[in-house]
């Protein structure tokens, strides 16, 4: 049995050794790229170990197939075995371990399975870790035994080891050949070959796969690209220049005092070192520190225009390493500050390039207080300026956040370029940044350029594309390269080709974009509006449905469907409906009996009902029915030619005015006296009360004489007017334009309106105006009376109030007075003190009355009695003896 074991061991050992050598060879051949040669060379086993381990598995499989029950043994020729033995002898000790690993053949998964023997841990290809035991003595024995036996027996394998090895070899070679063929194919793809290789490595989205990698590959506007690079080059002086600032020594940095942008623009005229930026604009002059005067770039533009790509590539072109902060990162002030600091103070270990910070999507997730803080921090950092060396260090003026890191010793200044990217330049949060940053508006890339690039990609990816389909796609996406590529990718995955029909029917590639309301309205009101045009833009050669009746029902249906789609895509149905409603009068359509108009009006009614449903039930699916109204309008009230369309503002204006009026009404009513107020509600106020009230304020037959000289009738009128003015909280206010223009006979009179302006409610154009005309002298009399009345009532109210305050405290007293014994003790202190104050108050009142004369005393005394009668309390009247209470 021992013998057999030994033999097996031996056999396996030999095989493995063989493999190792072979594989090492192969490996080297692969590396040198020479192709393969059958010649075997001796290669250090250790070197090849990792690769061979992988191969071992492969071999194992082969072996497993060929190994049959022990009896069936394959014959190895003697020569071969001799050779094998010879190679074995040459093994150096360092290789032994590795051989041993293979030798043990069944590597164990767990350490305890090695049973305490020497072992070597090996990590397999799949990341699995195994332990192989080592046994030197046994090995020697086996070697001997093996040599003895080699003449007698072949191996255990059905197929000789060499054949197996050859098989593996052949496979390997074929693979390599194939790969090299692939490579040579993809080399044709010139600059995009890299992308191809990336594809081999793993699945990648087309967007990232074919993202431009070099400056010349950029699709965005040339001019913008160049200016961005020029700006980045301006930093060269500061970042790479001779007197390169070493951020690693921040101690040298002096405290920077805050200077406004204008100031450092002024001081930034120091151009002696700006020779590098010689051809730059004058306003791009460097500031004192040698940095560009505008230290931050702000890219803005719709998605997919290549903003991020440009930022990365331009930075790379100028020798920076980019660090991107995008919406997925935490971006509060602290986190951003840390990022910027890291970027400014560190360099890449790999290539020593300085960093350029790219803050992506700065508008989106930067909202909220956090985002605002972050942007303010950034702006502060931009504005921070290193002051001259002579100024005292350590003084920072109010830059809390920027000082935070520097132990108050240094102010951080921006030492590396920062590029911010946003979609919406006018987002609120960006306001501070807009003032200090250099802004680039991204224009729509040339659609021809896009379609050329798309064609190239289609070639490489083997996506079939019909003739002009790519052009349409690029137009449809409105310059959004990303969406184009995504569409292509979608088609590729679906194994479809890009054809006109698929583009058109599936609505793919159509971007969710904001259409102009005028454009949509035009198509609503224009009889000839063609749907192909509406969808794909004017220059496309989409086979359009002709609507001239010959198409029949199906054509019509198609047309309506497409139109519907377009309206749904427009999204702002509310705006569209109001605009259509207001512009209906501008369309010159044939309508004799107003049948069409009334039908159109009913469609608006229908749409309005749906709006109510949407707002009440929050059910936005109803929106699809609202869209029916414009479609109906198109059939009812469209006319050939281009209608004169205006921006809808009548409705908005009316609503605004309505709100104003309502607020006037509410404020007036809330200040009314309670009796008057409870007698009416807003509706009745408008409909009945206000018109009559305003009429009752007209001073008819009132002469401009002193009240004392008035006739009885006049006095009544005056009293009435003043009464109404006071009790309804109104006052007269002279109109600015006056009533002079009305006629000569009114020259002496001026028109007045009421304040609050409730008289507006009964003023309609075309009706006799209801302004109140009166002589200014009369007005004076009225105002005077009103004022005196006010003062009087105020005084009365004041007296009353002060008395009420004093009386107020009494109900409690009365209550506690009547309460039982326990209660009494509890409140003892409390009510007693109150009683005392009450008594004091009383005395004081009496004293005051005595001092100031009888009338006031009486005035004061009366309300006192009155409050008592009111029934709130009868405590005062009862005589209380202290004994009773204690």
């Amino acid at each position, binding site marked *: 049995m021992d013998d057999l074991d030994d033999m097996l061991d031996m056999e396996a050992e030999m095989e493995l050794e063989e493999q190792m050598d072979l594989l090492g060879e192969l490996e080297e051949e692969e590396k040198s790229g020479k192709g393969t040669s059958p010649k075997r060379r001796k290669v250090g086993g250790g070197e090849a170990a990792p690769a061979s381990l992988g191969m071992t598995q492969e071999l194992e499989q082969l072996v497993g197939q060929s190994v049959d029950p022990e009896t069936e043994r394959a014959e190895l020729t003697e020569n071969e075995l001799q050779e094998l033995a010879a190679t074995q002898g040459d093994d150096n000790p360092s290789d032994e371990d590795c051989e041993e690993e293979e030798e043990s053949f069944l590597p164990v998964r767990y350490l305890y399975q090695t049973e305490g023997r020497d072992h070597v841990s090996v990590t397999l290809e799949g990341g699995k870790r195994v332990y192989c035991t080592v046994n030197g003595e046994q090995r020697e024995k086996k070697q001997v035994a093996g040599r003895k036996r080699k003449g007698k027996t072949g191996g255990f394998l059905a197929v000789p080891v060499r054949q197996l090895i050859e098989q593996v070899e052949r496979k390997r070679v074929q693979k390599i050949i194939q790969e090299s063929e692939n490579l040579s194919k993809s080399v044709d793809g010139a600059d995009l070959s890299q992308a191809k290789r990336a594809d081999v490595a793993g699945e990648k989205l087309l967007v990232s796969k074919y993202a431009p990698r070099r400056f010349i590959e950029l699709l965005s506007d040339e001019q913008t690209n160049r200016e961005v690079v020029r700006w980045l080059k301006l930093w060269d002086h500061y970042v790479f220049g001779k007197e390169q600032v070493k951020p690693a020594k921040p101690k040298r940095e002096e405290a920077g005092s805050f200077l406004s942008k204008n100031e450092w623009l002024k001081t930034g005229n120091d151009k002696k070192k700006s020779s590098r930026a010689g051809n730059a604009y004058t306003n791009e002059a460097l500031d004192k520190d040698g940095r560009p005067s505008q230290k931050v770039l702000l890219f803005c533009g719709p998605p997919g225009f290549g903003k991020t790509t440009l930022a990365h590539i331009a930075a790379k072109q100028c020798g920076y390493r980019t660090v991107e902060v995008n919406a997925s990162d935490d971006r509060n002030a602290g986190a951003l500050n840390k990022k910027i600091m890291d970027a400014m103070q560190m360099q890449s270990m790999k290539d020593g390039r300085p960093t350029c910070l790219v803050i992506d999507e700065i508008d989106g997730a930067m909202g909220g207080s956090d985002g605002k803080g972050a942007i303010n921090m950034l702006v502060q950092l931009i504005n921070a300026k290193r002051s001259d060396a002579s100024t005292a260090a350590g003084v920072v003026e109010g830059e809390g956040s920027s000082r935070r890191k520097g132990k108050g010793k240094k102010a951080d200044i921006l030492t590396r370029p920062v590029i911010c990217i946003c979609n919406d330049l006018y987002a609120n949060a960006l306001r501070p940044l807009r003032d200090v940053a250099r802004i680039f508006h991204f224009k729509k890339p040339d659609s021809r350029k896009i379609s050329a690039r798309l064609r190239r990609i289609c070639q490489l990816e083997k996506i079939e594309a019909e003739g002009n389909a790519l052009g349409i796609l690029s137009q449809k996406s409105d310059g959004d390269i990303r969406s184009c590529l995504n569409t292509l990718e979608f088609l590729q995955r679906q194994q479809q080709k890009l054809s006109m029909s698929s583009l058109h029917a599936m609505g793919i590639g159509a971007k969710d974009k904001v259409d102009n309301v005028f454009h949509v309205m035009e198509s609503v009101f224009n009889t000839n509006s063609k749907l192909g045009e509406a969808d794909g833009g004017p220059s496309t050669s989409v086979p359009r449905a002709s609507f001239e009746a010959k198409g029949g029902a199906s054509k019509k249906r198609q047309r309506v469907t497409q139109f519907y789609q377009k309206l749904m895509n427009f999204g702002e149905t509310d705006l569209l409906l109001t605009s259509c*409603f207001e512009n*209906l*009068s501008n369309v010159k359509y044939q*309508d004799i*009996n*107003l*049948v069409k*108009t009334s039908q*159109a*009006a*009913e469609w*608006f*009614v229908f749409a*309005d*009902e749906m709006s*109510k449903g949407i*707002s009440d039930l929050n059910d936005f699916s109803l929106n699809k029915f609202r869209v029916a109204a414009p479609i109906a309008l198109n059939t009812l009230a469209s006319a050939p030619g281009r209608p004169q369309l205006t921006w809808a503002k009548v*409705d908005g204006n*009316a609503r605004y005015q*309505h709100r104003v*009026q*309502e607020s006037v009404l*509410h404020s007036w009513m809330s200040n009314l*006296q*309670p*009796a*008057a*107020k*409870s*007698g009416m509600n*807003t*509706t009745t106020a*408008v*409909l*009945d*009360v206000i*018109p009559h*009230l305003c*009429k*009752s304020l*007209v001073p*008819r037959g009132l002469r401009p004489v002193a009240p004392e000289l008035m006739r009885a009738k006049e006095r009544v009128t005056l009293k*009435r007017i003043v*009464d109404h003015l006071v*009790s309804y909280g109104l006052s007269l206010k002279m109109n600015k334009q006056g009533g002079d223009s009305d006629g000569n006979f009114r020259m002496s009179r001026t028109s007045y309106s009421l304040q609050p302006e409730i008289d*507006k*409610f009964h*003023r*309609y*154009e*075309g009706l006799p105006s*209801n302004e109140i005309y009166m002589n200014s002298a009369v007005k004076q009399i009225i105002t005077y009376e009103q004022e005196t009345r006010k003062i009087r009532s105020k005084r009365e109210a004041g007296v009353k109030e002060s008395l009420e305050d004093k009386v107020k405290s009494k109900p409690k007293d009365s*209550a506690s007075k*009547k*309460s*039982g014994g326990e209660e009494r003790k509890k409140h003892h202190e409390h009510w007693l003190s109150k009683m005392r104050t009450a008594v004091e108050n009383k005395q004081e009142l009496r004293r005051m009355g005595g001092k100031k004369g009888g009338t006031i005393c009486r005035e004061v005394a009366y309300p006192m009695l009155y409050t008592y*009668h*009111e*029934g709130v309390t*009868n405590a005062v009247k009862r005589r209380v003896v202290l004994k009773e209470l204690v």
Partner: protein
Amino acid sequence: MSLWVDKHRPRSLDKLVVHSRQAKQLKKLVSAGDCPHLLFYGPSGAGKKTLCLATLRELFGPGAEKLKTEQKTWQIQLPTRKIEVELATVSSNYHLELSPSEAGRRDVHVVQEVIKEMAKTKSSNAMFQEQSNMFGAAKGQQGSQEKKKGEAPKSVKCTYKVLLINEVDRLTSHAQHALRRTMEKYSKQCRLVMTCTNLSKVIDPVQSRCVCVRVKAPKQGEMKSLVAQVAEKERLTLPETLAERIAEGSNRSMRRALLMLETCKINRYPFEENQEIQLPEWELFIKEIAQSILKEQTPKSLFQVREMLYKLLVNCVPADLIFAKLAQELMCKLDDELKYEIVKMAATFEHRLRLGTKPIIHLEAFVAKFMSSYKEWSIRIFG
């Protein structure tokens, strides 16, 4: 001193002239010192509010007439955010009056919040009563108080506050549903007295929880005698015919009648029999709209009418009233054949306005439809 409407408003149930039968019933109802939830309904100017206030006075005594206005703000915590609702209220020690419909779509919160708040704070009356119940001495007190008060011997018995809600029919259905629960839950501490013009817009559950009191518009004769009475109180000599005309022109609304009377008096006194009664401007304006509708039926005139309608809406004239008035005005000048049609149209579009949001659209649809059928009709008749 205020307008005659307010000045001559009867204060107590006994003094009511017009709805004396209802007044008597109400008096009986509250004589026990308790009252159910009340819902007064009837057209504008019929005297709902007067009845309400008189009932309150009957319940609480003259204390209920000591009113104060207050701009109240409620801070309401919603699950997602906090909102503030501001409303003008009129209140006394015993009741609180408000029109939650002014809060628009937030009226739900107002209704819930205010009732809960009221339920939390007991009326001073209730406190007083509790205390007086506690101690035997209270009895004598009460007796003396009763004597002094004279008019309101039952006031002490009410331990609840009253919430007076105006224009319940204008509440959103959400608010009305909110009302129905709170009405029951807090009925011990708080009674509701509500007014509305259109009972059908109040949901049934709310109706069934109330004693509904119909306050119908006074008859022509009643109006006339009312006007005469007020004139007498003001020591005016009012010619019979003018009184009649005022009663006619007032559209059976007491408020309007009295306001008209006052305006007439201001315009000319001593009265003349054929004195002009001034209509409010918005009515004149609607008349003008009706005229321009009948004058020309083209898209152009339709859009002119639209402008005019906008003006009415801006000035807070309710759209349903415009519908009614406009239809009325148009009807005066129409052939019988069309009369039926226009009423149907106006009703249809007014109904659809309920289902919609923007009044102008519905008004215009009505006008357009009318113009279209009127034109068709006139072509058919006159060729």
